[in-house]
């Protein structure tokens, strides 16, 4: 069996196990998903008010915002559902809690990321997929492209979270920095790119790659072009390799906390 298939099976088993565990508390499981969907709907409220007053801003209309949210919320959901520990990595490193993963034969970074599933992230994922059907011209081809873009967006988000939280290897407790960085990444993704100019525009396609998380995917869904599509897919692969490289450099500086924990 190829390594890729083995890792996909491994990820699926973790995902299934985490979902089954969460479903033991069925009311909590359902409420987390439903309330997260409601939470995301409320976020759209601002734009509804905004566009009922101004109609459009530099060519962007409410319809485009629906697509931005479809990709960004869907991508965030994908990242936190499949790679649930990506937002907790700093805490695990600073607390010396990686020992369990290091002692096992699987790739430590992959194992750490997939071992947790965010249930509320499922709400984001469902919302992202659902909101697409409220955009201007939903169709099967656009929907398939959306699914690919959600995956790419999720991989970029998870990868850059890993890079930000890996700073804990070098500076100890750096959760505040990691949180601020991921907040910036998500916040920039949720606003029309046309409002940013000059240096900031450069930032959102490099250091804070919100451009690849939401704007480019949105344009590709609206007007498909192969070059744009490949650049998003390519950037997501590049960010995953970069995250793995940064994590492995940091791992050499890791110090165990000798923490004894029971995993049930």
């Amino acid at each position, binding site marked *: 069996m190829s390594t890729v298939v083995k890792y996909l099976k491994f990820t699926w088993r973790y995902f299934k196990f985490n979902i089954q565990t969460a479903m033991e508390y069925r009311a909590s499981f359902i409420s987390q998903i439903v309330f997260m969907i409601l939470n995301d709907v409320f976020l759209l409220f601002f734009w509804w008010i905004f566009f009922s007053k101004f109609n459009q*801003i530099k060519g962007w209309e409410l319809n485009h915002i629906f697509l931005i949210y479809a990709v960004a919320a869907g991508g965030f959901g994908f990242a936190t559902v499949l790679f649930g520990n990506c937002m907790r990595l700093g805490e695990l490193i600073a607390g010396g809690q990686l020992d369990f993963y290091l002692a096992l034969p699987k790739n430590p970074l992959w194992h750490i990321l997939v071992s947790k599933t965010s249930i509320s992230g499922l709400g984001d994922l469902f919302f992202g997929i659902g909101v697409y059907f409220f955009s201007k011209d939903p169709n099967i081809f656009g929907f398939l492209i959306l699914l690919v873009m959600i995956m790419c967006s999720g991989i970029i988000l998870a990868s850059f979270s890993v890079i930000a939280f890996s700073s804990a290897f070098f500076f100890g407790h750096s959760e*505040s920095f990691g949180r*601020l960085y991921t907040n910036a990444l998500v916040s920039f993704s949720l606003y029309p790119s046309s409002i940013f*100019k000059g240096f900031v525009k450069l930032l959102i396609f490099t250091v804070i790659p919100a451009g690849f998380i939401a704007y480019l995917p949105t344009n590709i869904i609206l007007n498909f072009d192969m070059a744009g599509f490949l650049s998003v897919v390519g950037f997501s692969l590049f960010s995953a390799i970069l995250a793995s490289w940064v994590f492995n450099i940091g791992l050499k500086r890791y110090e165990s906390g000798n923490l004894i924990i029971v995993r049930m």
Partner: protein
Amino acid sequence: MTNTSKYWQIGKISFLNKLAYISDTISSAGFLILILFIFSQLWEAVYSNMNLTNVAGFTKNQMIWYLMLTEVLLLSFPRIENQINEDIKSGSVAYILNKPYNYIWYQFSIYLGDLISRLLINFSIGIVTVFFFTKSIEINFVYLPLILLTFFLSFTLNFFITMSIALSAFIIEDTIPFFWIYQKILFTIGGLMVPISIFPEFLRKIAENLPFNYILYGPARLALHFDWFYLSTLLSNQLLWICITGVISYFIYRFGVKQLDVNGG
């Protein structure tokens, strides 16, 4: 120790504790700078693109100052609900109940101590940032004591709404999802991102008749457009809703304590 002085001491400890572990507050101040930057770009695009000087009574600079004020208020609210939720779910609330203080006032002292330290940092950073983006000062500092009074009542109203929801954990166990919704209500009809005067007529009327606009929109609007009539309206409504939510949280607490069933261990 007198009643007032014990709550004063609890508040003081909470204040000093927050200052000692300042990284969270700095992180939220970083978020404040970020969001002010994004919105300054957004409003710049709107006002310049459409050649507007005024939207619902707010100039471009006032719109950015408005967001700074509402964000500072929101980011300064301590998240006491997590602790209360955990205390009730785990049963550890039983160990607090037999202490010589009232649980609601105890939480209020912690809340205020924590809030003041956050407010000092967020407000200082917010004013410097917004001045840097707008190159103007839109608050009339002559009325600052009255504006701060409405801030204090806004904090108190938020506290009692938070307590009413958090204490419901006695009945429904996990209240955290309800806080997501409460927070989003503040984002929307509370007027966090845009003043409710921009809302369509029917929605503005709904928002004006609910308590949430007196938490964010009211104090921020007063700070930017001070007038005595609005001050009296705001103060009376804040006091009215504090009384209503205070009574609700008291009764939920009394009911919850009677229902409390703790397994020893």
